């Protein structure tokens, strides 16, 4: 199956939403050739990816998207956070519009990273379209620390201070990763601020009881943005949920891309393999 990606724009209520599509095309999903490994009984629901704070499908999913697309259809959605469209209900509407245009009538495995996890959780509440849900570095409700970070970013941004770049890189990555890599800072457009505000305001307390799809929560041990406690809290709040932990900073798609792929690939193929309520055993390679 081809893993070449195509880009398509879908207008939802006046907002142009960028969609990166791989593993299927306009004619739809060709079920032949995507039966992973030829071993029966696996789900091949399309995977829908939502990027995180300061990221886009292109920056966050440069590894995950093409490699997931080797075994299943994948759609990455760059929601429009700018202007007045960045409120949570507006983002949920955007996602609903995109899915009904691009994958009409299909159930999907929805993967949200960081602020994308906030949108994914809100979207998945009482929504039969979501066959399974993966929340990577999610936050249930913003803490004082989240609000402090958002405020600090806001000050630096308003002052045009270059220290903003340093703060973003500092907060998104683990010390270990920064020893060896020079990552890019968050995107400089308004979306990052809108995403950070959304994160700092987020409260999923009401949505969580309505999440019934099989869910996997991925927490990162050195996450200085969402915090690993937020992930644990989501795990503890959901009845049909498993938990995996990765030794990484918030930017886990940059720090441990293959491990995220492994965790997601296993879960979306066999959402029920890991019992609800259990913690994924470390791989011990």
């Amino acid at each position, binding site marked *: 199956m081809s*893993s070449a990606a195509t880009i398509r724009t879908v207008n939802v209520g006046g907002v142009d939403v960028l969609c990166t599509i791989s593993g299927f095309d306009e004619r739809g999903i060709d079920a032949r*050739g995507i039966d992973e490994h030829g071993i029966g009984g696996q789900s091949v629901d399309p995977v829908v990816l939502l990027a995180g704070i300061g990221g886009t499908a292109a920056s966050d999913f440069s590894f995950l998207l093409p490699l997931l697309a*080797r075994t299943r259809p994948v759609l990455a959605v760059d929601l429009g956070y700018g202007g007045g469209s960045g409120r949570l209900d507006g983002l949920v509407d955007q996602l609903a519009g995109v899915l009904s245009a691009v994958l009409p009538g299909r159930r999907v495995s929805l993967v949200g990273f960081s602020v994308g996890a906030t949108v994914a959780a809100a979207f998945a509440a009482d929504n039969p379209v979501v066959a399974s849900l993966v929340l990577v570095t999610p936050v249930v409700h913003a803490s004082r620390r989240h609000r402090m970070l958002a405020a600090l970013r806001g000050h630096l941004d308003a002052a045009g201070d270059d220290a903003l770049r340093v703060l973003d890189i500092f907060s998104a990555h683990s010390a270990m990763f920064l020893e060896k890599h020079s990552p890019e800072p968050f995107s400089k457009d308004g979306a990052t601020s809108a995403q950070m505000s959304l994160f700092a305001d987020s409260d999923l307390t009401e949505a969580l009881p309505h999440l019934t799809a099989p869910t996997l929560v991925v927490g990162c041990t050195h996450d200085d943005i969402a915090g690993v406690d937020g992930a644990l809290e989501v795990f503890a709040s959901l009845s049909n949920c498993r938990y995996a932990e990765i030794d990484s900073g918030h930017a886990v798609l940059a720090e441990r891309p*293959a*491990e995220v792929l*492994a965790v997601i*690939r296993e879960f979306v193929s066999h959402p029920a393999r890991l019992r609800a309520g259990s913690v994924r055993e470390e791989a*011990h*390679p």
Partner: protein
Amino acid sequence: MNGIEPIEVDTIIVGSGFGGLGMGIRLARDTERTFLILERADDVGGTWRDNTYPGVACDIPSHLYSFSFRPKTDWGRFYANGSEIQRYLQDSARQEGLLPHLRFRTEVSQMRWQADSARWHLETTTGSYVCRVLIVAAGRLSEPRIPVIPGLADFDGPVFHSSAWDHGVDLAGKRVGIVGTGASAIQIAPNVARVADSVVLFQRTPAYIVPRADRAYSDSDKRLLERVPGAIERLRSRLFWDAEAGFAQRIGLPDAVEPFRDVALGHLAAQVADPVLRARLTPAYEIGCKRVALSDEFYPAIASGAVQLESSALESLTGNTAIGASGAAHELDVLVLATGFHSTQPPFATRVIGRDGIALSERWSRGMVAHASTTVAGFPNLFVIDGPNASLGHNSAVHMIETQISFILGALDHLEIVTGEVLEVSREAEDAWVRELDRRSASTVWLTGGCSSWYVDDRSDRLTLLWPDFAFAFRDEVGSFDPRGYRVRSAPVTVVD
């Protein structure tokens, strides 16, 4: 050994490298089975016993290139040298109590399945053996490939393969020729250049080389791993997942391939200033198609002239004169063949005779195949470690070996649970597995990269050496035994005198 009854045990392992020792350790620790490990040489270690050439070292981080169930906190370097790995394997064999199970200087000449007794019968240089389960862990880089070069037999001086280094030959003041530019040659050339009078390297195809950036571990590094619970597992995990990301380079993902190629070509540009020399060292195929070497010493040795690059194959030898395909003649005292191994056509396969009297090499006449990379239709109760599609170009072989060991232990448990004696995979299951791997291989750099390599069988152009996916996927798919596709039978009733 005529007249002596064959020695009978439950399980025989052939080979005592990482595969055979790992299997033996797990059998000894986790089971009550009787087993022997047959080894043709007089020590354990496999590759790391045989390869003692100057500069021999591993290209995989030492904390990853070791058994997960025998972590070693005091590896001396990020990339261990060969002798440290060999000591690790010797210590493993001794400390795990494997010595009583080992039979050294025991070269197996034939392994034949006897259907009437449902046993494997082995003929060896130390007598006959009989077993129920045969595990071949004979290695994939264990049989030197000696090139056919006119005049080679009459060369007027020592000639030896890189994996059979003749330490009796003093290279000081000698004119040394090295044939090949694989991983061994790249380690050997700069080291030999330090002592020899001159070194000529015969290069048929240049390799991609990336910085090695090796470093010694400090005492505090080692103590941290020793003192802090979980620290060594954490380090190993990080090394594993870092390496795992490299698979993206092997399927031609532009975002992964281009930076990787830039690193290699940047390394070449930084170390070799002469544009003519640089051009001769620049590969014409895609990076990753052949094994990517790690060296900080190779290019400087060429650039400084310490190693003279003959960028053509060694075509013939007359007396002391070596003539390259370019026509250039070089006077040599010693010739080193760093020409690799019989990887896709392992010689052990000619000695394994299955259910229908067919040799494994015959079953594999179009290339190696196995279900779950481990079992072969027509060869009951046979398991092959490090055989078809069980190697990696981007991560640790030990991870693959441990995965296969878990699979084999699972298969043996399954036999016990269903009170069976004979386990054999169906041809249909094997064919389906192979078709699926061929499908996954099609988009990999090993088949699309425009090179010839020891990963690909030249009889069928199939990728038979490498697993065409992530190492984690191998663990997911092979790490536990799945009985679907297998037939289990009980043993035929035999009358014992």
